[in-house]
């Protein structure tokens, strides 16, 4: 160890090799789907729908993948936060029905924004309690984690039935967000545009936090090697609780968006999308936010294109996609967590 190497770390540190190959995948997939679909108008509609759905899946999956990467905890009860978030938003929007029904984008967005904030606060709080009560006693025991979070999911789903009733609820979109914007031949639903914007904001914010702040640095370091971060004197547990709460809040946000997208709501809403979320996490590489983003877009594209071309095999096609990607990169697109 000489003075020269310590004084000029910029020269001695090898630069991280950028891996752009996976980014091409969605583009290739979209291009490959075009000749099968034929009609470019349909193709654009499907692609926009896929992007919107991908963003929602990403919002839900990002927290889960970070939680896993950081603490080796996979929360099978994540779906509960989706449902709880959606139900809280339903109640808030019900209280603000005046703001929702008026045909003004500003009031509508305000109502929606308020609903999202309350939903995220609620799911964040529940996430904190969930981490303390359910997950904390079983750190490092995978089998028990899976079982216990599954049990948490059952209990949460039943409690939703108790609090909100078991019947299917209608989740109406605010007036100004209904319908589509028509440009020439292309019609794009307004809510999908909003979903894409929200998803991109979450992605960019997350990337900035992870890459430009101290906390982000610690999280990334923790995902790579949590013991080393602890050895350096940081309390990884506390960091982990924060990430868990943030992940739960994001699941709540995703739940609100997903419920508005489907416009109906049942207590089992989380279960439907969790399967896609798990596929996304596996495809992206456990613990990788970038991989999760790409995976979400890929899965949503596959789901939307096959839903149009061969609706019967929509989910099966995504499993084939997962198998194909795992054959190419067994650890996922961007392997991060080395456990």
């Amino acid at each position, binding site marked *: 160890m000489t003075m020269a190497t310590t004084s000029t770390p910029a020269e001695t540190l090898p630069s991280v090799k950028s891996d752009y190959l996976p980014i091409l995948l969605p583009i290739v997939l979209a291009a490959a789907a075009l000749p099968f679909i034929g009609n470019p108008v349909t193709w654009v509609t499907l692609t926009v729908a896929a992007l919107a759905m991908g963003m929602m899946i990403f919002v839900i999956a990002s927290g889960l993948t970070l939680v*896993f990467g950081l603490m080796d905890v*996979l929360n*099978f009860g994540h779906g509960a936060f989706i449902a709880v978030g959606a139900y809280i938003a339903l109640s808030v929007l019900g209280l603000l029905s005046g703001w929702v029904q008026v045909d003004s984008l500003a009031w509508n967005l305000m109502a929606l924004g308020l609903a999202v904030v309350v939903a995220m606060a609620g799911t964040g709080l529940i996430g904190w309690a969930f981490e303390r009560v*359910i997950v904390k*006693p*079983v750190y490092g025991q*995978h*089998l*028990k984690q*899976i*079982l*216990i979070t*599954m*049990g*948490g999911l*059952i*209990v949460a789903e*039943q*409690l939703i*039935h*108790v609090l909100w009733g*078991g019947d299917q609820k209608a989740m109406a979109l605010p007036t100004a967000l209904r319908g589509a914007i028509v440009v020439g031949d292309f019609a794009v639903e307004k809510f999908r545009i909003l979903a894409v914007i929200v998803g991109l904001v979450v992605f960019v914010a997350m990337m900035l936090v992870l890459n430009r702040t101290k906390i982000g640095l610690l999280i990334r370091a923790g995902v790579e090697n949590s013991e080393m971060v602890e050895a350096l004197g940081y309390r990884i547990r506390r960091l982990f609780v924060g990430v868990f709460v943030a992940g739960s809040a994001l699941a709540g946000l995703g739940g609100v968006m997903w419920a508005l997208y489907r416009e109906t709501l049942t207590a089992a809403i989380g*279960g439907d999308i*969790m*399967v896609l979320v*798990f*596929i996304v*996490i*596996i495809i992206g590489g456990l613990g990788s936010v970038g991989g999760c983003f790409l995976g979400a877009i890929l899965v949503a594209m596959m789901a939307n294109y096959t839903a149009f071309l061969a*609706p*019967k*095999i*929509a*989910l*099966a096609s*995504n*499993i084939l996609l*997962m*198998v194909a990607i*795992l054959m190419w990169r067994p650890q996922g697109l961007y392997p991060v967590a080395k*456990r």
Partner: protein
Amino acid sequence: MLNSLLSGDYPKSRVLSGVLVAILVGLAFAPFLFSGAAAINTAAKICIFIVLVASYDLLLGYTGIVSFAHTMFFGIGGYGVGLGLYAFGASWGVLAIGILIALMVAVVLAFLIGLLSLRVRAIFYAMITLAVASAFLILATQFSEYTGGEDGRSFSVPPVLRPGFRLFEAPVFGVTINGRILAYYLVFISAVVLFLLALRVVNSPFGRVLQAIRENDMRAEALGYRVVYYRTVANCLAAAMAVLAGAMSAIWLRYTGPDTTLSFAIMLDILLMVVIGGMGTMYGAVVGATLFIVAQNYLQKLMGTASAATEGIPLLPKLLHPDRWLLLLGVLFVLSVYFFPTGIVGRLRGEKR
């Protein structure tokens, strides 16, 4: 005799032995002890789920693999028998061929899933099986021209098992021995045989290796056991047993459909039964399945009275509403994972692990 039947794995607790004997006697003489179709239905369901839960315990409790695709294999069994009998008429040959084809499909599928994901960690396997099982459920409901879709398929069973068939002219102990009762005994005897077989498997040297893998897979590998090989074989065995349980269910119900065999709710039920009964003990499957199904049928009535009694107190009647029986069992499930991971049976045996 008893030693070889139970493969040397005795209940090892007086209370447990008593409970098991009571369950065995109850199931063996169910048509004579209880009257009414509901009771015998419950008894048949318990028999079927004992097999299903025992096969799942082979994976979860003995090998330490969490699979969410167990209902898929259960469904393959149900559909194998059901669609066969539906398409080619009710005969024993069709039944046998249906079971055989279902077994082959299930084992190949289990093998492929295992090959793909058992090399990596438990969590991967859990996620991948969840995805595959959901896809299978959707495929089964979508290809309705073959499977009957959401409605499933009703079919007839071989004549001997139909309600109209009489074994004897005169009733025995006041019970007419018709085809339904023969069908029940077919299910019951299959369940007993399969359960004893499972007991044999887990108490064989092979079963000991599985337990070693559960406790420490690295060490098992270091001792020279090919972990992937053992896990895959366990996976295929459990799948085959689940197929047979599915076939039993189809024969008993004379119906097969996504809600009775494939749905995720049943997967959760199995999970609850294994954990509450006791992971890593075959007897846990018996106790868990019996308790759960009896609770499913009778706890709801109890909760109905409790809910009515607490009328006026806020929230409590809703919590005790008969439809919320799963809430209580869910809480029991979480508590049992924490405080007695070996379940009721482990508790009774006084094991500490």
